[in-house]
């Protein structure tokens, strides 16, 4: 229990990941799926940024001269997550575009209804 409390960021991230994962898997509505995917991605960003964060240290932005390296948090995870966010945004945009197309063709964005439509 104590471990869980100490690592509350990681626990929260994994909790969020689970929520996003389940939404992505179980919901039939495409918009909800996309939201689920975003929650999932966000949880990973949270986890990553948390990995690089060291309590009591500053962001590695130089304002008043350079401190010793131990004075800053690790910038690499944050940098990586910038890339990750860009990727997630583009995937989301693409999925939304496809959803619009799908709605034009089928008239619905519920995947189970689309599945049933195949019969005719």
């Amino acid at each position, binding site marked *: 229990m104590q471990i869980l409390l100490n690592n509350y960021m990681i626990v929260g991230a994994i909790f969020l*990941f689970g929520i*996003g*994962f389940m939404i*992505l*898997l179980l919901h039939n509505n*495409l918009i909800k*799926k996309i939201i689920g*995917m975003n929650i*999932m*991605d966000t949880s*990973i960003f949270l*986890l*990553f940024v948390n*990995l690089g964060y060291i309590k009591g240290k500053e962001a590695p932005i130089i304002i008043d001269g350079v401190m010793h390296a131990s004075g800053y948090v690790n910038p*690499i*995870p944050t940098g*990586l997550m910038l*890339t*990750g966010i860009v*990727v997630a945004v*583009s*995937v989301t945009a*693409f*999925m939304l575009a*496809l*959803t619009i*197309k*799908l709605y034009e*063709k*089928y008239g619905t964005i519920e*995947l189970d209804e*689309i599945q049933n439509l195949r019969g005719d």
Partner: protein
Amino acid sequence: MQNLIKLIPLASIMILMLFAFVIPLLKKKKHVYKLTLVIMSLVTVINLIHVVYIALNGGYLFDVGHFPAPFGIVLRIGEVESGIGLLFCFINLMVLWYSYFSLEKEIKSNRIGFFHTLDFLLLASLLGIVFTYDIFNGFVFLEVSTLAACGIIVVKDKKANIKAAIKYLILSSLGSGLVLMGIAFVYSISGHLSMSYIHEALIQNAEGKHNLILISMILFTVGLGIKGAMFPLHIWLPDAHSSAPSPSSAILSALVIKAPIIFLIKVYYLVYGTTILSGTVVLDLVLFLGVLGMIFGSLFARSQKELKRMIAYSSVAQMGYIFFGIGLGNKLGLIMAIYHIIAHAVTKACLFLSAGSFIEQTGYKTIDEFKGIGKEMPVTLGIFTISSLSMIGIPIFPGFISKWNLAMASIESGKILLLFVLIASSLLNAVYYFPIIINGYFGEDNLVGKVFNSKIRPVRTLLPLIILSVVMVLAGLFSGFIIEFIGRGIYI
């Protein structure tokens, strides 16, 4: 000169990325075709030179922008990477050549340029996945390839395509999420992203973190397994591959599902290494899923009515062979997994393109309607036949070589019962490929009303297919050299 040659992997990616964005600027379709073919040939040729160089001098690490690891991005180029890179370029070249004659019949003409842009982006990202030595970089390339692959599915603006693309994208982003989570776990243990540094750190810090390492391994396996159509995660594949235009199907089946496998192998052996890997159940899991894929993929393929769907399910079965080879966990098994990647890429490209020609020339889709096609299109069905013989595993063809050596590898690892799986799977292959060939060439009822050579395409349009099938036969004949070449660069 040496430095120039070492630029080739990066240069291939850069050239492709650059010209991907030049293509939309061109107005005339003819120019698009000419430019893409020229660029593709150029990339293929420089990759060929590169392979020759590697064969003579061995592999190397390449620092992008002269920043050494762990800060800069590193490409690791060895025998496997360069060979697979050449394979991807070559197949893409052949597919583009083929699409020169047939693409406009399948997609709207204003989308031709779009298709080529996406294709170049896709190939560039796939090459990136293959060459990379940095797992986060691999992840980014993986995402680019997913988006581009979805693009070449929806380029044909039909209902089924959009549905298939959505399905693919959802599952794929699930997979990417898992991979990214895996990267986060690995990073939290090791603090590095470059494969060799992670490996060292993992070996040092492994004490007491076995569970974390195992979880990260499973995350990678499942995440990349989705993209590589590992058996129960393959559900996106048949829809996507069968609805896409034939050149796209060929690229998807031959290249797109192969690159994640290479990445998975690199993660297994360069990040974790044999010692960590052999202490876990992950390889057994991969082996088990591979076996299931080999059997059930074929069983599903047997029950399909549409030709392209059948070939797509056959891909699932063939990916099963590759996972089987990885899962055996010994050197020969891994070599054969990579050899099978080559063999299957060439063969499946042939199959999809010839099936595409049938569909294009006749307008039919289901297997029943292709009875008697051998009289109308004898050469194309001949190519189809050769490729299916390889799938079934007739000696000399590459399919046989992989089957045989996989059997040797499973005997080597003491799992003799797996031989029955290999045998059963090749029999199942025979069961669904042969009826098409037999009904295509023979049978009184089937040939009634068919006119000899009536739907044949001019030979020049079939040339890429013929070259592909010749290369396939050569890959079987010279399997000894190929296996030896892969064996030199294998990670174990």
